């Protein structure tokens, strides 16, 4: 027998997510971007990152999580690849030098617009850290949909062509790489074609969500449902459900939630930690000032004084029922309806995280209707297949189950 090889899964769920906001600059000016305070001036000095790392690694007692995801965001993080490289080197050395338990279980994570993915400095970094990387490139779908929102700052030109050329390189590095698609009002008509396009590019996992902000127009829910039903037809008719996943379709969503059994918060804000260029800590990046339209930043400490645990208490005690209006508690299709704590805070009538925004309500309901359509159709197809070829029953069921 030769040397054994091992799959490369990652234990999500038991990992602390620690985010460095390395820059507030980006080449793009996406129309739906929630980062209202982007600028080209605020770049994280290495000394601030070092201070944050020193504080965190020397306080293992308040970070007992089994694993850690060191996340780098912007703006566009890869604009600061040299800084990131220096930070990652420091992290590796310090985790090892201190015999920190995270040395045995860490990842570096990036969500990038993909524009400079191919550049030598980025590629060099990737190959240097390949076993500890998770990189997602955001591509919104077809050129038409992508370029509708994801445009260059300044000239307003679409960025699709510069992103799509890097997709093969990215999939070579990360064959199981997934992408994140954001849907806002104007690009609803392009959803079906966009998802299918992403599948055709070789991206097997597409996470997709509607923006949480209150942008939805009259009739958007009907258009949205139509798009998703058309998408369901294509996926099932072409058998794409066997190899590809689109997060819109999930058989766990669209059910009422028993208040006594399902009271957990949706969002992980407060369990994460985010650090900005001045060394302030936030419960999530969405609580930093550059992410907020109408509210003040929710700072929970800094690298000099440490974390003020009292400022995290509201996040760690937050549950579904306390923050939800009656209509959500009694909702017949409550499961799977998401919220963003930062958007809740930004949209609330007072500075609180305890007022759930329901701007997404009608879009969730439309998604549930389409989702039901998808599963009914798939069940029917599976039933027919079962009758046709009973010998394949077991494998089809197994496929179905693994998809859930």
């Amino acid at each position, binding site marked *: 027998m030769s040397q054994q090889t091992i799959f490369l899964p990652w234990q999500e769920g038991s990992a602390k997510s620690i985010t460095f906001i390395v820059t507030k600059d980006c080449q793009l000016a996406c129309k739906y971007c929630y980062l209202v305070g982007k600028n080209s001036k605020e770049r994280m000095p290495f000394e601030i990152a070092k201070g944050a790392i020193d504080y965190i690694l020397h306080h293992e007692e308040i970070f007992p999580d089994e694993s850690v995801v060191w996340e780098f965001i912007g703006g566009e993080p890869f604009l600061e690849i040299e800084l990131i490289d220096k930070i990652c080197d420091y992290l590796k050395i310090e985790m090892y030098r201190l015999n920190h338990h995270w040395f045995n279980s860490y990842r570096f994570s990036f969500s990038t617009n993909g524009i400079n993915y191919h550049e030598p400095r980025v590629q060099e970094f990737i190959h240097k850290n390949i076993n500890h990387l998770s990189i997602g490139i955001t591509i919104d779908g077809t050129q038409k949909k992508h370029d509708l929102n994801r445009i260059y700052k300044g000239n307003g030109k679409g960025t699709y062509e510069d992103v799509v050329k890097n997709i093969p390189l990215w999939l070579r590095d990360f064959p199981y790489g997934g992408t994140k698609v954001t849907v806002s009002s104007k690009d609803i008509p392009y959803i079906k074609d966009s998802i299918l396009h992403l599948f055709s590019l070789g991206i097997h996992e597409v996470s997709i969500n509607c923006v949480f902000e209150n942008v939805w127009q009259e009739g958007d829910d009907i258009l949205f449902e139509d798009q998703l039903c058309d998408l369901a037809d294509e996926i099932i008719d072409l058998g794409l459900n066997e190899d590809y996943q689109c997060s819109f379709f999930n058989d766990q969503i669209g059910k009422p939630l028993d208040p006594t059994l399902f009271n*957990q918060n949706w969002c992980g804000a407060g369990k994460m930690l985010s650090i900005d260029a001045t060394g302030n800590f936030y419960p999530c990046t969405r609580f930093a000032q550059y992410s907020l339209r109408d509210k*003040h930043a929710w700072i929970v400490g800094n690298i000099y004084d440490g974390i003020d645990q009292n*400022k995290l208490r509201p996040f*760690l005690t937050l549950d579904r029922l*306390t923050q939800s209006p009656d209509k959500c508690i009694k909702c017949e299709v409550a499961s799977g309806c998401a919220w963003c704590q930062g958007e809740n805070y930004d949209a609330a009538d*007072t500075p609180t995280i305890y007022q759930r925004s329901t701007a997404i309500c009608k879009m969730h309901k439309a998604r549930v209707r389409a989702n039901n359509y998808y599963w009914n159709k798939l069940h029917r197809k599976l039933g027919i297949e079962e009758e046709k070829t009973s010998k394949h029953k077991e494998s089809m069921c197994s496929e179905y189950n693994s998809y859930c």
Partner: protein
Amino acid sequence: MKQNLSVQIVFPSYELPKEYLTVIGQIDHTIITESTTPTLSSKNSIYVHSGLTNLPQFDFLKDLNVVIRCKFSEIIHGGHLIASVFPFVRRLNIVMTDIEVINGEDLDGYNNTLNSLSDVILKEYVRGHFVQTNLLTDRFMLDEMNNCNAGIETITLAPDGKFYICPAFYFDSGDYGLGDSCFNVGDLENGLHIPNIRLYDLEHAPLCRICDAYQCKRCVWLNRKTTYEVNTPSHEQCVITHIERNASRSLLKRIQEKTTLLPNKVIKEINYLDPFDIKPNY
């Protein structure tokens, strides 16, 4: 007065003009006044004493309701001064003005002070003087939360003609984060409007609704200052009130041993000082 409304009037440290007193005299009310202020003497008045230093010199009239506002360190080091007041008053409320700066090292001292105060209260009970104090005896009488309930049961009208959740939100001009902490909730012209009023309600306070330190004032202003949320108490707040709760439990048992009072009352033993440690994990 309609809808069972009661009015408490906070008097200033100077004498009010006669016309004010005339208007005030036309309604049922309670006066809250500094102990040094020349004012109408009334059994319904609440006298607020700042600090402990001149407490022994103060001439307490029998059966007064007295409030002492002082720093946490004063309570720890001046327990004997507080104890000297119990024989003379009907009720003594002690309000800590700096609970947010307490650290772990002070907590043993606080426990010791409460035990010393308990000794004096026990003597008073044995001699038939059932003095009340928020720190130690309120918990005996309660089977559910008895919080301040500012915003739910009470509202403050300030000299600027605007409504505030409580006086602290009017007087406070600090910026503790998330913007101005001095915010009003309406005025006389446009009426009262309390956005997110449910957050002042116990059912919307995830920690407090599972807590049995019923004597806690659950100060929403302090919550806002220390945790940014009116419905979430700080760790220090919870620990302090649980030390009081547990001291009440000990005092109750001693009173039951020495008198025939409260024979069936039970405060159960618990093994935490902060309900955060026992919050449900959904």
